[in-house]
């Protein structure tokens, strides 16, 4: 057996093992806030889903699919997560095809191996959110886009139209991918100008090629436009936009580290980001003589579909408002892993097997660590809090949740008999914005509980800017009995409201 083949076999064993372990660990994980929200929305009627989503910063396709899915297979975390996992599985053969058409079988195999080993991808493959669907649509759009420009057939055009339309209805950020494809198309078109005659004549003679690309894009925009108008008429999610911290260059590097090694503790991520000079080495390998015949243009296509979306999101975040979140950029991962496979595969013969094994081992190790470690920053252990309170909170105690919207995942798990409220007070069953916070209203709210309740349990998560104020007030006015951390950013505190 050749060294190359045995390397591949070992890596694929890793992949299978990592999927099995991930299925075991991640299917059982606590529901996270966003998941709970998606699941909750999906239980509504179709008009209800559309109406609710139009008030939020997302688009409705995923919740609509989830709606039919849970109608068919029942509402359980397992079945809902399975939907995401199935789209992850759908992505793999299409990704293989895209990589193979752009390079060769070995690189295609390596691409899907690295993709399936990525702790980041695996994490979202088990999350009840739209991320695996948007990635699937991204890979489909690559496939049809490349087919369209290389063969010019109607199939490519139709496929491209559907993939970008569905992509847009899955995540707003898909537009950045279409922009990257547009820029590449422009480059590709200009590059073919052979300087016989003027450029104007060239455009005139080849207008059909331009039309081939623009038709699906315009049609998709046309079909998407009614939603955008509806969304804006509903207020453009003015009240529901997430609080995203200011973006810095660090975020870009952290995103790339996340793609490769998943979500690690803050100190480990900071360490990995600090090693950025080493990322220059792969660029040398990326732009060096290839062992097999790969079109330079293909490298550029995948480069642009990684760099342009990240770059644009970064620029918007710096100059307009912060929108930079790694998970929103998940649709660039297929291109990212194709480039990575190309790069790793074209290191010298002796080295590539070693580097591949080291890489696979590192990804595998980080995957396991991410899945089982309590310090993983994206973990939200509402299940753990609920189980704790099931055992410890008595019927005459009261549980307060802040931020208010984190009530969804908690309520899903909590089976105890203590009352549940939010700080600030918010009626989750009534639509409308969450009331604003003030210390005065907090004081009145808690004072009111002293009449009827013994202990107050406060669950802190998703700090909306007033978490410290609540902690300070309660710590200085009531006896604190307990502080307990469940996962990064998820803390439980217990206070004595009255003495018997």
């Amino acid at each position, binding site marked *: 057996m050749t060294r190359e083949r045995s390397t591949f076999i070992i890596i694929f064993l890793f992949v299978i093992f990592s999927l099995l372990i991930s299925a075991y660990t991640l299917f059982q994980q606590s529901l996270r806030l966003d998941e709970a929200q998606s699941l909750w929305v999906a239980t509504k009627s179709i008009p209800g889903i559309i109406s609710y989503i139009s008030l939020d910063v997302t688009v409705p396709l995923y919740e609509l699919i989830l709606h039919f899915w849970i109608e068919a297979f029942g509402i359980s975390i397992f079945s809902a997560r399975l939907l995401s996992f199935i789209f992850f599985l759908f992505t793999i053969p299409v990704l293989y095809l895209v990589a193979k058409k752009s390079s060769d079988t070995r690189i295609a195999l390596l691409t899907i191996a690295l993709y399936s080993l990525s702790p980041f991808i695996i994490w979202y493959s088990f999350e009840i959110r739209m991320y695996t669907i948007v990635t699937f649509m991204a890979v489909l759009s690559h496939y049809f886009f490349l087919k369209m420009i290389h063969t010019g057939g109607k199939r490519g055009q139709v496929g491209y139209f559907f993939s970008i339309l569905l992509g847009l209805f899955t995540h707003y950020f898909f537009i950045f991918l279409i922009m990257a494809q547009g820029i590449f198309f422009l480059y590709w078109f200009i590059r073919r100008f052979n300087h016989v005659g003027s450029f104007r004549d060239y455009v005139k003679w080849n207008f059909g090629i331009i039309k081939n690309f623009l038709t699906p894009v315009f049609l998709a925009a046309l079909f998407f436009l009614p939603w955008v108008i509806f969304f804006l008429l509903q207020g453009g999610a003015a009240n529901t936009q997430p609080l995203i911290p200011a973006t810095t260059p660090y975020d870009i590097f952290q995103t790339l580290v996340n793609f490769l090694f998943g979500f690690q503790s803050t100190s480990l991520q*900071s360490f990995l980001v600090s090693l950025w000079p080493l*990322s220059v080495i792969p660029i040398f390998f990326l732009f060096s003589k290839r062992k097999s015949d790969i079109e330079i243009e293909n490298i550029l296509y995948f480069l642009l579909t990684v760099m342009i979306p990240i770059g644009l999101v970064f620029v918007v975040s710096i100059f307009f408002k912060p929108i930079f979140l790694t998970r929103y950029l998940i649709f660039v991962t297929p291109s990212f892993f194709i480039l990575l496979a190309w790069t790793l595969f074209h290191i*010298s013969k002796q080295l590539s097997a070693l580097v591949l094994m080291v890489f696979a081992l590192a990804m595998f190790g980080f995957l396991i660590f991410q899945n089982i470690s309590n310090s993983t920053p994206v973990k939200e252990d509402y299940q753990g809090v609920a189980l704790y309170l099931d055992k410890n909170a008595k019927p005459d105690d009261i549980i307060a949740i802040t931020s208010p919207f984190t009530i969804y995942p908690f309520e899903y798990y909590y089976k105890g008999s203590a009352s549940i409220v939010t700080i600030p007070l918010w009626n989750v069953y009534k639509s409308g914005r969450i009331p604003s916070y003030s210390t005065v209203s907090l004081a009145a709210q808690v004072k009111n509980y002293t009449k009827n309740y013994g202990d107050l349990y406060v669950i802190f998560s998703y700090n909306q800017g007033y978490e410290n104020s609540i902690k300070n007030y309660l710590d200085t006015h009531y006896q604190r009995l307990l502080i307990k951390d469940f996962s990064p950013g998820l803390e439980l505190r217990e206070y004595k409201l009255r003495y018997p």
Partner: protein
Amino acid sequence: MERITRGYVPNLLLFINVLMAIVYISWWFYLPHMGNVFLYALLFFGEIYHIIMSFGFWYTIWNRKIPKRVTSPNYFDPSVTVFITVAGEPVDIVTRTIKAAKEMNYPNFKVVVLNDGFVANKENWKEIERTSQDLGVECITRRIPGGAKAGNINNGLRSTQSELVAIFDADMIPNKDFLSKLVPYFYDEKVAFVQSPQFYKNFDQNEITRGAWEQQDLFFGPIMSAKDNLNSSFICGTNLVLRRKALEDVGGINEKSIAEDFLTSYFIHKRKWKSVYYPNILAEGLAPLDLLSYYKQQQRWARGSLEILFRYNPFFRRGFTFAQRVEYFLSALFYLNGLIVLIDIIMPILFLFFGLQPVSSTTQSFALYFIPYMFLNLYTIFLVSGGGITFRAISFSQASWFLQLSALFSLLTRRKVGFAVTSKKRQEGNYLFLIYPHLLYIVLAVIGIALNLDNKNPAVFTNSAWAIFNIIMFLPFIKAAYNWRSFFIFRQSPNIGYQE
């Protein structure tokens, strides 16, 4: 002239490169980034050097065109003397070259062996004379030394009368059509010389030949043909045809420099003659087979080129076009790279040992400027080389810093360096001493990293990563210096069994 297809770089991309370089260098002009003033100034100087080299490269390849195909009337067959310069090379190698030279299909030429074995104290000088006689070609053996290879050729010029002379090193085997392809260019009476590439037929023999050839490939491919567009290509010592009149105009081949070819072209251009670069391979020779030969060859080129910079700076001499000034300046400036590499590699060591930091801001903000600039730069080189650039070629250029520094030192101290013919046979021996500076760097880096193992400052990780980056860049060069396999594998025990 038509636009080239392979290795074509759109001017738009070069323009974007320029913009990106301006953005990048602007980071260095923002002085609040400054840490240690002296180190910052050194790095700043290095970056200015890189920017000048980059701008020069883009200027050179801007609007690169395919040269016009040249034809001449049938009656144009000026007399040519083919000089084969010999200074102790093995007789079998010289014999092959003489035979191939005699086989050339041109009506009006003779072959002359310029034998410098006697003045160079080589044992086989008499054998060369005998071989020449046996093969029916004239052999001119110098008895009065001086001027090294240049002196040998000038001696040959004095003893012959042909209008044109072709020059081959002893190992360069010309194709049959060498003269018939190059001589027609001399129909233009302003053409002084036509240079063709120096191809190494043994390029795949070992790490050194591969590295040497891959460097040559970039030089004799896009760089020389781009210089040709600017009437700035220069003589490379072998595989060329020269007009005697032009040589006489500049006093023959220049004997004052060890890079006689480079300086001769310099004076030829100064006297307003035209030069031509013929980009296809018409002769094949031997690459340096061991690190010592490579080292000596590169050091000779470095010393000769730096002389142009310090003693014949084209910006302070009359007679050149702007493009020629720029091109000679860039070719010479290239060999200052050793100094810049030294500045770059020493920074992480200074930080790891003494905590000295040239830059005070977060390195991720620097990376945001640096990586896109680097990306585009490497992509452009990749394109211009037709996808042929290798990591080894870049590594050899970077790792040659010590030999370039020693060439600079010898020039500044006016130490005389003799002309050494590049050996055509593998020199037996241990050349580890040539990489002592690199090994010392590795040792210092390892100690520096070890000393900071308990330091959690992100700057430690980043500087360690830079040190590792530099080591990775040196690896192919280090690998070529020694038979490392023998270092790790136990010597085989002598065969004590029966021999069949």
